[in-house]
């Protein structure tokens, strides 16, 4: 093959690999005129046999896509309405961290749809069909042991919260706000209703399960406990540590800015 062709093939392989490693939540920390529906890091059947293809497809192209559309529309309306409002031209993260500063006529719509957009991006980002990353590992696993005593104690508590949440919502493992540029803040389990997010409480989520019925009804109907079991089988602990590191990089930036 001509050397230039070889180079082009190599370059296109590299771009496929690097776009394949882009997490679904990348971009929520930067302002954009409009936000795309994040690509999943796997095919629709990539989470089989745990989460079925039909569920992943409708969850992504139905629910997550609707939050994306509605969020973009609400952001546009808000920006057009008040060209001086800097919060409307901030990142999605900043918007979620400052919900109380959104004008009241847009607040509920943005809370629900920015929340829905970001929550689903984080949910997809913690999972994979990669069998190699099933063991809790890295800093997150070590900190889980410190805070909860053992991984199984953590898993039991997290599972109990997920099973008993009333209505629609999520269960989260998050780090509390960073008070130091060097030490890792402690981990905490919280729950949220509807599309609320611990990001709005100043927390930095590293692991999340969606327990809205649409996350499991096609496969498990009313049996949420089975979905929770499926979800544990899909948690990619490397991805969880990557997410943890992603937050830390932003904290470093904040400290530098200060």
């Amino acid at each position, binding site marked *: 093959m001509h050397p230039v062709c070889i180079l082009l093939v190599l370059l296109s392989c590299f771009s496929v690999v690097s776009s394949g490693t882009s997490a679904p939540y990348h971009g929520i920390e930067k302002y954009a005129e409009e936000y795309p529906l994040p690509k999943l890091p796997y095919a629709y059947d990539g989470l089989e046999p745990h989460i079925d293809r039909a569920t992943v497809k409708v969850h992504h192209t*139905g629910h997550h896509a609707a939050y994306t559309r509605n969020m973009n529309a609400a952001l546009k309306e808000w920006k057009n309405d008040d060209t001086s409002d800097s919060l409307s031209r901030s990142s999605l993260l900043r918007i979620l961290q400052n919900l109380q500063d959104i004008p009241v006529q847009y607040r509920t719509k943005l809370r629900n749809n920015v929340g829905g957009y970001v929550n689903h991006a984080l949910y997809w980002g913690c999972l994979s069909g990669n069998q190699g990353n099933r063991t809790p590992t890295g800093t997150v696993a070590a900190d889980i042991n410190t805070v909860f005593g053992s991984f199984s104690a953590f898993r039991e508590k997290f599972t109990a919260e997920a099973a008993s949440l*009333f209505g629609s919502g999520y269960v989260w493992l998050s780090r509390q706000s960073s008070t130091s540029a060097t030490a890792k803040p402690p981990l905490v389990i919280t729950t949220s209703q509807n599309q609320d997010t611990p990001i709005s409480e100043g927390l930095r989520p590293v692991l999340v399960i969606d327990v809205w019925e649409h996350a499991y009804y096609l496969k498990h109907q009313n049996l949420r406990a089975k979905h929770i079991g499926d979800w544990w089988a899909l948690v990619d602990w490397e991805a969880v540590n990557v997410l943890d590191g992603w937050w830390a990089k932003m904290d470093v930036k904040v400290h530098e800015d200060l």
Partner: protein
Amino acid sequence: MLASRLFTVARAFPKHAALGCLVPRLKHTLPDLCYDFNALEPVISAEIMKLHYTKHHATYVNNLNITEDKMADALKNGDINTTISLQPALKFNGGGHLNHTIFWTNLSPSGGGEPTGDLMTAIRDDFGSFENFKKELSATTIAIQGSGWGWLGFNPVNGMLKVTTCANQDPLEPTTGLVPLLGIDVWEHAYYLQYKNVRPDYVKEIWNVINWENVTERFAKARMEKLQ
């Protein structure tokens, strides 16, 4: 002889749980469904009806009974902390049982169309037209975030009809003071297997099975109670 008669009478009229429970409390049970699981097809599939009734509603009933037993014990022991901590479960499961019991009667295989008589008059008075009312209840119900119910309620204070919503299984009357006349369940389990994420289609179709006779009965009863 007399002792066994007294016992029979006592069992027929159980004392309130708070009074120390000398007699077993009557358990809540699933109400009878007045139609087959497939009776509301094609609007609501038999698969959904069966799951909704035998799994979801049944679970609320079971968990309500369990919660009430725990509450009876806590009350008997003067354990205020436990009594209070059981309240979310009581609201959730009690509300779930109340709401679904109303819902099954609000639907009928021979339902649909429009109400007549006093109920229609009241709808026209309070909403302008039946179309306006239908649009308002549909839009409000579709817009519910997460799990909840859309309601047509009767305000016993001013005698007017009102459209509103409740989150999760919050029961209408204790939450808002409105008497429930017609409820639309928009928890995803009510429609997902058939309509997936397209809640608006489910809400559009359900109007074809609304049992206006039942809604009218509830309205008449609520109005009469207001007059008293």
